[in-house]
């Protein structure tokens, strides 16, 4: 059996690319090593509960659904109606630094009003940032400006506000340490502050089911438990793949969503000669706790809280097993659903050190997870004491599961469990091998919506032009 296209990895970007290729009439096969689809946005079952791996919220949610907005354009390409996603908007989220909270909603005006009430004279700068983000989205990706911090400090004159703006954007999609690529910053700024957060009531699974259904209806084939061991190259071009069990599959084109370095590992010929590819260093530890009652009843009003315990955000690989100084708390029950969610829960995310968690002794692993989780909650509890009583909330937790960079590496194949991939991004997906393209995280499109946009763009780029010409 010969395929037009083989897609490596059934993450969101891979499946989205597959749907699009099916539209183009290409015979497409998706190969996934894991027994489940979703990749970095998958789900799992623990303690009898369905838990999402990556999803806190879906970004780019624009209540008015303007047709030119990223979400609307994307759904159109996938021929998915917005109702099919079943999204519900957030209530309101909080950026909490010592003594200063900024609450924001899916209306950018709220953010501007709340931030400029605290930081006098910053209103113009905040409005300008929004204009700049819209401009970048309209005019396309640019590589001439690289430092988000530099741009920000030219527009916002309060250093603390700069840190507070960066906190959610870095946590939700920065593969770099300390600073952030300006284009990435602007896209994230638009997708989080100007557009906003939403979530399907049952989490990520219905969206994955919808994508897979659409792909298979279009004639695509998906194989789980089918890892690719080697990409075969003949005369500088793709010839096929060899699976973990030795099976060989021939194809004309490969889209790899495995990651850039991860792709080079299964296809050394694909490494661009002049490129020094570093693995990503940013990974996270995350705890999900099931609550015996809604968090809102315990005084947690926010949908998502981004916190930092000092005036300067340190966003870099943690020296300690877990960097407890900053983090994200997500309350899936605090989206504005039509009916309450099945299980009330709360998620805690912190930067973690991949080396430590990869190498920690098996016998100590569980105890260390609990130790560091408690350390993180101590810091968060003190910092957020004016918002709610975290210690009281902890007594309402009936089940907790924690995953670390080790878990992320094992199930997604991403080196270091680097959820945002390598700091080196290849926007056009090209590699040194003809007809082998990168798609997904290392193409620079992050988050569920970003991943889908990346997959669609890659399919359009590789094959849309072919159809046209």
């Amino acid at each position, binding site marked *: 059996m010969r395929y037009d296209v083989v897609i490596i990895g059934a993450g969101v970007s891979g499946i989205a690319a597959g749907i699009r290729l099916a*539209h*183009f*009439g290409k015979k497409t096969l998706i190969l996934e090593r894991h027994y489940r689809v979703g990749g970095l946005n998958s789900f799992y079952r623990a303690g009898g509960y369905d838990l999402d791996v990556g999803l806190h919220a879906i970004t780019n949610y624009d209540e008015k659904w303007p*047709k030119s907005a990223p979400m609307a*354009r994307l759904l*159109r*390409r996938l*021929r998915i*109606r917005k109702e099919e996603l079943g999204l519900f908007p957030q209530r309101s989220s909080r950026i909490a630094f010592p003594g200063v909270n900024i609450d924001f909603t899916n209306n950018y005006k709220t953010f501007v009003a709340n931030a400029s009430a605290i930081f006098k004279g910053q209103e113009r700068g905040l409005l300008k940032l929004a204009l700049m983000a819209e401009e970048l989205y309209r005019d396309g990706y640019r590589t001439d400006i690289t430092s988000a911090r530099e741009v920000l400090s030219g527009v916002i004159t309060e250093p603390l506000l700069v840190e507070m703006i960066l906190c959610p954007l870095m946590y939700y999609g920065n593969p770099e340490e300390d600073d952030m690529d300006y284009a990435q910053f602007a896209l994230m700024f638009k997708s989080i502050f100007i557009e906003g957060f939403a979530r399907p009531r049952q989490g990520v699974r219905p969206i994955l089911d919808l994508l897979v259904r659409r792909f298979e209806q279009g004639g695509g084939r998906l194989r789980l438990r089918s890892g690719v061991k080697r990409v075969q190259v003949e005369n500088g071009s793709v010839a096929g793949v060899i699976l973990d069990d030795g099976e060989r599959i021939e194809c004309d084109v490969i889209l790899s969503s495995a990651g850039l370095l991860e792709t080079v590992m299964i296809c050394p010929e694909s490494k661009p000669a002049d490129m020094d590819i570093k693995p990503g260093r940013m990974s996270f530890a995350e705890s999900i706790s099931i609550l015996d009652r809604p968090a809102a009843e315990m005084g947690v009003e926010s949908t998502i809280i981004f916190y930092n315990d000092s005036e300067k955000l340190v966003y870099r690989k943690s020296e300690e097993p877990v960097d407890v100084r900053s983090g994200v708390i997500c309350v899936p029950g605090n989206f504005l659903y039509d009916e309450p969610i099945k299980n009330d829960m709360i998620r805690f995310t912190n930067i973690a050190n991949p080396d430590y968690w990869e190498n920690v002794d098996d016998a100590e692993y569980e105890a260390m997870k609990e130790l560091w989780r408690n350390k993180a909650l101590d810091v968060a509890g003190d910092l957020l004491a004016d918002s709610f009583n975290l210690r009281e909330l902890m007594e309402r937790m009936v089940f907790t599961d924690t995953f670390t960079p080790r878990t992320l590496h094992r199930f997604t194949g991403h080196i270091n469990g680097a959820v945002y991939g390598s700091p080196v991004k290849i926007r056009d997906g090209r590699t040194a091998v003809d007809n082998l393209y990168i798609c997904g995280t290392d193409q620079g499109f992050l988050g569920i919506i970003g991943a889908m946009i990346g997959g669609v763009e890659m399919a*359009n780029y590789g094959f*849309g032009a072919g*159809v*046209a*010409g």
Partner: protein
Amino acid sequence: MTGEGIRQAIIEIIKEIVPDEDLSGIDPEKPLRDQIDLDSMDFLDIVMELRKKYRVEVQEKDYGELATMNSTINYLLPKMESL
């Protein structure tokens, strides 16, 4: 296929691509883009569907022919008559 058949085929394709648009009152002489919200990628999708469903090739230099419903039908008629 007749001109009317081609018109229906085009409407079916546009419906698949932009299911939320109302296509009942399209003026065949006016540009499609002025009447329904189609971007350049949508036009690419129309071309792609024509190829997939009817094995009709629309060359890139001819994209302008797809401006109005009538110009589209006139352009496609010689290619689709025999279907």
